[in-house]
């Protein structure tokens, strides 16, 4: 069985790659960092003895994604699943971010993902079983003064995955979506946060064990579920004050 992991070279992506490989799954790893991908490939092959293919691609560039899709059509035919543990955050991501900056963020965190899914599903003529796993962010629950386009893109991604779940209800396609709180990754490493960070290794194990669930939405770490619920229930005027307090 072969799984494609998009955003594999670090953080959750790297741990997912190890978790799947340790369960004997072959891998296709995608990231824009070719050097890191090559080293990750050696590491996984040496430790787990599975087949690993690496395909460098930059999801923040639509040209790159379209080229990638054109030149790797056959690769998508053989897939048993696709996972998107990809997140692009930048320091300049604010309401007044430049068009170039905001495009990059929206493409990486939302639009390019939809293109890859679209491509996979259109190629899947034999209607074979495929699992698609997306990763959102708790930051999508409310607008913010930092990571503005990131949270908007993650919000769009969540809505898109809900549509995907609903559209594929009667098909062989299993879709899962994880809303992630703070994780122990490079993105959050140096930040002092009010709640503990979840382990990406633990999450990778959960994702693997949930692969057969159809149309699932999950929160990780779990305590973000009630928090997200509260944010959605409370009137915006109150949420606004709380956000102001913690920002």
């Amino acid at each position: 069985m072969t799984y494609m992991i998009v955003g594999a070279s670090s953080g959750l992506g790297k741990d997912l790659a190890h978790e799947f490989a340790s369960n004997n799954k072959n891998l296709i790893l995608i990231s824009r960092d070719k050097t890191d991908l090559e080293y990750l490939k050696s590491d996984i092959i040496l430790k787990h003895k599975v087949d690993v293919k690496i395909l460098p691609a930059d999801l923040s560039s639509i040209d790159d994604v379209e080229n990638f899709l054109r030149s790797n059509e056959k690769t998508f035919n053989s897939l048993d699943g696709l996972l998107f543990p990809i997140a692009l955050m930048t320091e300049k991501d604010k309401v007044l971010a430049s068009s170039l900056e905001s495009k990059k963020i929206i493409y990486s965190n939302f639009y390019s993902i939809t293109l890859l899914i679209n491509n996979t599903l259109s190629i899947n003529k034999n209607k074979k079983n495929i699992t698609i796993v997306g990763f959102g962010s708790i930051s999508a629950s409310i607008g913010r003064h930092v990571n503005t386009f990131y949270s908007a893109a993650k919000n769009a991604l969540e809505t898109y995955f809900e549509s995907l779940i609903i559209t594929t209800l009667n098909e062989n396609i299993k879709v899962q979506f994880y809303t992630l709180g703070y994780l122990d990754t490079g993105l959050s490493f140096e930040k002092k946060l009010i709640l503990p960070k979840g382990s990406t290794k633990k999450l990778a194990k959960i994702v693997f064990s949930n692969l057969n669930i159809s149309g699932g939405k999950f929160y990780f770490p779990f305590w973000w579920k009630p928090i997200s619920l509260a944010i959605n229930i409370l009137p915006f005027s109150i949420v606004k004050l709380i956000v102001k307090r913690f920002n």
Partner: protein
Amino acid sequence: MEKVKIQSLDKNYSANIFVKRPEKYRELKEISDRYEKMIPMGSCSSYVPASFCNDNLSILMTKFNKIIEFDKVNKTITVEAGIKISELLQFTLKNKLWIPQIPGYPSITLGGIVATNAHGKSSAFHGTIRQQIKEILIYHKTHGWLNLSKDENKKIFDLTIGGFGLTGTIVQVKLKLEDFIGYNFKTSLIKTNSLIDTINNFNEENKEVYQYSWNRSDNITNLGKGFIFKNEINSIENSSVDTRGLYHDTNKLESNFKFNLWNNFTIKFSQFLYYNFHLQKKNKIFFENFKKIIFPFSGKEMYFKMFGRNGLIESQIIVPAKKINQIIDEIEFNLKKELPEITLLSIKKIKGECNYLRFENDGFCITFDFVRNKKSLNFMENLDSICQNNQLIPSIIKDSRLRLNTIKICYNAYDQFKKDLNEFDNRRIYRSQLSDILEL
């Protein structure tokens, strides 16, 4: 970026620092290029402030932990420097190979081992990690990516091994591996009655046997009583170490109790128990698992916690064989005079050649752990004089109390190290609290 408060393991130094943890080669370069002063950090479990400096950046390398190349036939491996030593062993031992120069705690990183030229229990047989290193890849803010080996950039290669991270970030290391045919260790004990008796009972073995002592230090009459432990790989063909036991996720050395719980009574009590427990085992051969022998402090973190907020002082010195009797006499004399509270006293043999600031030489390596108090500090002052008068080598990575003057006298090549380092990096970009103490 927010600052983090950090302490050396001996609690003698603390600092507020910035920490970045790159995970990709691009990120490491971007971070190094952006900051003016920095120092690489492994698992930050050193006794001394070697991987941080107040208000400076520490580059935490623990996410650089991949195995890049493995050649079973030629017995070589290339790995990223942030790999924990336990993770590296998990892989190599499955292939009946290992590196024997392993410091006593599993979360210590390969980068930290190379940068301090560490040794393990087999120091008499295998020397220090320098013996295993074939190539190093570093990233330096001004020199960029550099391959180092005996054939390429030799001077920087030599400066980097035991160079305390001052030549830049070690990113990859190619190591020569040694055979480990066996499942666990066969241990035997020799009872000793004094420190001199201990020295006399170290054997010249021509097979691979690791010898080290544990000596009582709880009172003057018992001083030096103890055991020499002898570990031999239990060579069972077609068997390999159960590597699951080596899994080590977190560094448990960070926190301490509020108060010091080591005092005359607790030292006496624990040493009495340890001594009498092992007395039963004398003249017997027994088997001990790999982790227990190689990582003696794993699972015994309580030992460090008990030193409380004030921490401990560790001292390690190398004494040439021809001076050992005289030095033991001088040490005993000063112990009787100052009566410091010693929680650990141990001796092993070591081999090597001291160059630059590397802790290695042919001789006996004596290790003490003290409760940090006036009596211990007085004794240590005397020990420094003994080192200076006899050109013994004190370990820089173990004792943050060491004065520059002592280091200059005991390490002949101090000036050469300083000169070569400044030639390589005249802006002195990579610096730590330790390098400030050493005026490097």
